């Protein structure tokens, strides 16, 4: 069941159709009130806390861009020393704050074994500064720093696989999720919050502003990403990966790509390459051929 309680208040300044804010709202519903949230600089920090307003009905702190995992480590250490039990520490960062500038702090937090749940809300570019590519921008995507021109064809590197990096730290729980699958997401949040030690949750969050699509389509795109195998839902307890959603018939990636302006420059050849890479990844994880 999805609790009715709203711990992220309405009235924040997120764009209509924002996938990230959907993720936050759902995650807080699953977590409840006994939490302390540590957030990295980014869209979510900016849209929820323009002083003197705040959308947070739980204790929340922001320090800087790259240090959410380290600040959360400090919060957790203090709670431990002060003997405060039953409070879950949750760190939240976007893809830039997690995969790029915050990766070192995240690695340190996981390696040290802090009881912190880290959530990456991944919208696949630096949206807060105006759509610049990040380590998780997928191959072929237009951004303002990977423009499609005569020489460049959008992002030239595949998406960085941060959940696998988390997995390599041998932490108790790692999962991927999507705002298009709220029940799967909430299930994973509850599991991630319940473990002793670090857990990592990577949530795929469509961004109408950065991906260039009609804001009414956010959930549909989130689902299409999963249905095409561009984003795969799994969880890993004790290191072994288990798929949590298996599309009956995987759809061709073009169904996901063609709704987004960021891929509109792609040729059939480039779409074929994306399809091949997605097929390869799906084979690795045991997700079947499409069609």
């Amino acid at each position, binding site marked *: 069941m999805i609790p009715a309680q709203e711990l992220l208040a309405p009235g924040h300044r997120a764009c209509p159709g924002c996938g990230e804010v959907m993720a936050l709202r759902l995650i807080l519903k699953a977590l409840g009130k006994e939490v302390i949230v540590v957030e990295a600089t980014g869209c979510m920090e*900016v849209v929820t*806390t323009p*002083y003197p307003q705040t959308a947070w*009905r739980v204790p*929340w702190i922001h320090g800087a861009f790259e240090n959410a995992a*380290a600040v959360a480590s400090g919060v957790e250490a203090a709670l431990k020393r*002060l003997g405060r039990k039953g409070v879950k520490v949750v760190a939240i960062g976007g893809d830039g704050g997690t995969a790029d500038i915050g990766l070192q702090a995240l690695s340190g937090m996981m390696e040290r074994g802090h009881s912190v749940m880290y959530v990456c809300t991944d919208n696949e570019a630096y949206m807060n500064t105006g759509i610049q590519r990040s380590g998780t921008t997928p191959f072929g995507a237009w951004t303002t720093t990977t423009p499609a021109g005569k020489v460049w064809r959008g992002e030239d590197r595949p998406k960085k696989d941060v959940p696998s990096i988390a997995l390599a730290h041998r932490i108790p729980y790692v999962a991927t999720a999507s705002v298009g699958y709220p029940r799967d997401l909430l299930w994973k949040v509850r599991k991630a919050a319940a473990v002793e030690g670090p857990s990592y949750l990577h949530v795929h969050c469509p961004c109408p502003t950065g991906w260039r699509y009609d804001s009414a389509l956010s959930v549909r795109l989130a689902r299409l990403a999963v249905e095409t195998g561009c984003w795969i839902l799994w969880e890993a307890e004790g290191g072994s990966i288990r798929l949590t959603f298996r599309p009956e018939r995987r759809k061709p990636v073009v169904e996901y790509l063609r709704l987004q302006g960021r891929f509109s420059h792609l040729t059939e050849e480039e779409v074929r390459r994306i399809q091949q890479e997605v097929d390869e990844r799906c084979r690795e994880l045991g997700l079947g051929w499409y069609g």
Partner: protein
Amino acid sequence: MRRLLNGNEAAALAAKLARVQVVSAYPITPQTVVVETLAKYVADGELEAEFVKVESEHSALSVCLGASATGARAFTATSSQGLMLMSEILYVVSGMRLPVVMANANRSLSAPLSIWNDQQDSLAVRDSGWIQLYCESNQEILDLLLQAFLLAERVSLPAMVCYDGYILSHTAEAVEVPEQAEVDAFLPPYSPSLKLDPDRPLTMGPVGVPEVYMEARYMQHRDTRRAREEFLRVAEEFGRRFGRRYGILEEYRTEGAELLLLTMGSLASTAKEAVDRCRERGEKVGLVKLTLYRPFPDGEVVEALKRAKVVGVLEKDISTGWMGALYTDTVAAFANESRRPLFQNFILGLGSRDVRLEDLEGIIGALRKAAEEGKVGENPRWVGLKGEMVE
């Protein structure tokens, strides 16, 4: 009890006596012994603290930020490049008004790489909103750190206690160590009125929109200025309890002095020796040692220096392309004084270039000449440069 301690051990012992609850630091020369000593205290059960073994100084200070905001007394220690890596978070901690305390064993900055001593590191972050205190001896390290905790928590601002790498950090001196019970009576447990707590949710570190940002900065500045008076109160309480008196600055044989030296840190000891020699010869020379550098105590500095004919500002840093930081601050404090001494800036000791008594006598000679001629010579003057560098 008197114990033989090097500066790093004195710093670690002060943190232990302050009953720090979260320690987070990263090894860097010459501070490393502070982290090692604290780790051993925790390992041996002598200090009940969370010791967070971070992967960088950036994270060390970030951990302290989170811990302090949650209501724990947090401590870190660093030097040089480590302080530079922290510099982003220094501003965040002070802007969020968190009373984190840090020991900084002063070391030069790269490049060229130097693990040796000067004060370029902490002076480079003088605008970061941290209270800065400078130590002349290992006793001062222990005493000023204890006072720093109380001061920081009273004014809700972070404080940095700086001491010269190697000269103090690695040199053993006899240090009077107070009893734990005495320290407990001086420094009560940290219990902030605002902290991260699910029972009373609040938002910390929000966006400062243009309508509020400047006011936030102003309040931080205003309260930092007021920390001067609070430091005096804390020092008074410390003096009454422990018998060792501290002030914003120390005036050493300044009575009737025509020539005054102004400096910070361990160099004051050498300078005192030089002053003694001058006084033996009947020369009117004195020393002003600055303990509290930020907030800058302009009134006290003016009062201490204004009767001199010439003031030599001796410092182990350079605002590259201009003068030393202490010199520019001191001269600024005199900007609207109708009567003021001549000022000459001496840059010395960079990267552990030895500062000898003869160097001090040369400096005093230059000040004497300036007093006679009514104008200072080369300014700033670099002391101890190899001959071929002198133009």
